[in-house]
């Protein structure tokens, strides 16, 4: 019996590849932008790309935000991807300070533009956004990232996997009970990404 997943369409980017990856790992996927539908879902995947701002505020402060909180509080498996993971936290410094769902304690911050890539004089800086394949610990698998902001989690026990970019070690994946977050794009991370999604679908675990 395939696991039924509601894939949240909150106007935060194209859903096709996430949908496709979830189907590939055995889920039965329904895309919904209806907060009532999402609120009663037994498994929710909430992807997002882009930035904190008017569109995320509309979600946080509106019916969809309530729906996401209901699923989380009820204890049903929930996975936030990229911006979807960042929105689990308290707020982002982006756009002068924007609210998140506040489900997990912490802030979202921008990668500094002044991290030298090497000790030599005149070394260039680490680029922002962080784009490409990076290894996560302790799993030592590579995942594909593309983001300019990262989470600073206030509770270390929420951090499942870490990743390093320059001097910043940030959460690559988070987990508290039924709530999961992936900063990387599992649907763009070939085998490791599909395995991650499969674990989530099968056991509600990363």
């Amino acid at each position, binding site marked *: 019996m395939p696991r039924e997943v509601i894939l949240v369409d909150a106007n935060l980017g194209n859903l096709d590849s996430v949908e496709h990856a979830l*189907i590939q790992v055995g889920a039965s996927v329904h895309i919904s932008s209806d907060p009532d539908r999402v609120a009663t879902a037994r498994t929710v995947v909430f992807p997002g790309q882009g930035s904190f701002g008017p569109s995320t505020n509309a979600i946080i402060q509106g019916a969809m935000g309530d729906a996401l909180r209901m699923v989380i509080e009820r204890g049903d498996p929930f996975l936030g991807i990229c911006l979807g993971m960042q929105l689990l936290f308290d707020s982002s410094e982006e756009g002068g300070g924007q609210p998140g769902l506040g489900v997990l304690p912490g802030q979202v911050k921008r990668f500094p533009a002044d991290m030298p*890539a090497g000790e030599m004089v005149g070394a260039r800086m680490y680029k922002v956004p962080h784009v490409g394949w990076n290894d996560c610990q302790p799993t030592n698998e590579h995942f594909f990232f*593309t983001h300019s902001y990262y989470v600073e989690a206030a509770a270390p026990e929420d951090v499942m996997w870490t990743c390093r970019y320059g001097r910043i070690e940030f959460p690559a994946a988070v987990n508290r009970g039924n709530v999961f977050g992936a900063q990387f794009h599992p649907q763009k991370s070939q085998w490791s990404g599909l395995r991650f999604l499969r674990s989530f679908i099968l056991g509600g675990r990363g």
Partner: protein
Amino acid sequence: MLKRRIIPCLDIKNGRVVKGVHFAGLRDTGDPVEAARAYDGQGADEICLLDITATVEGRETFIDVVHRVADQIFTPLTVGGGVRREPDVRRLLAAGADKVAINSAAVANPLMIRQLADRYGSQCLVVAVDVRKMPGREGDPEPLYEVVIHGGTRSTGLDALSWCEQVAALGAGELLLTSMDKDGTRDGYDLWITREVAHRVPIPVIASGGVGSLEHIREGLAVDQGGADAALAASIFHFGLYTIAQAKHYLGEHGIPIRPHETPRGVTISTASLTS
């Protein structure tokens, strides 16, 4: 740490891979979906599709190719070639591309970069810049490069380094830099201009144009030589000269941070749903 990326690029004309892809195990060397899947399975870090058809019908065919390729791979997909206006970008993203590359259109209307970045996000936008070295003159402190467009046939009078900085400032997510002097020569990237651009712009730089050997890829990605974040290559992979796995092995052996080629375990990708 963040790894450098190897990106095979497929030129598509009328829905087929130009000159085909020739390595063991492919039934139809001109089928873009088969080629993309093969590269994906070989551990390509991204796949790039370039439409060189340049006709209205060709555009529709290309969108169909993008859709079918995106359906079969779980790897970042960049597409480009003849992208002129915002609806082209929207349609390509909707078809499943993760990133769309624009080139001449950005030169014609630089603000388009800002508009697209604001609308779709910088992470969806690659600006391709083709450059050519200008003849040197006495007393030039450093080489001058100009931006060329339309496949290198038209001069723009724009200084390459300034244009690249402007492109980054306007919101491009990444910059795809092609040396038109080196493209097709199999003599290596133009390391000087690649490194200059990589140092000057705060966004990732993808090197393109001239790869004929694995050493060329290494040079392009070495922080003290090309300094690029990613390497685009076509013919050395298409003609089966090297596999991506071999390229990654070589790079790893020579100090370039690269994601190792991983054999799939636990999941299979097929057109049916999962079996494991």
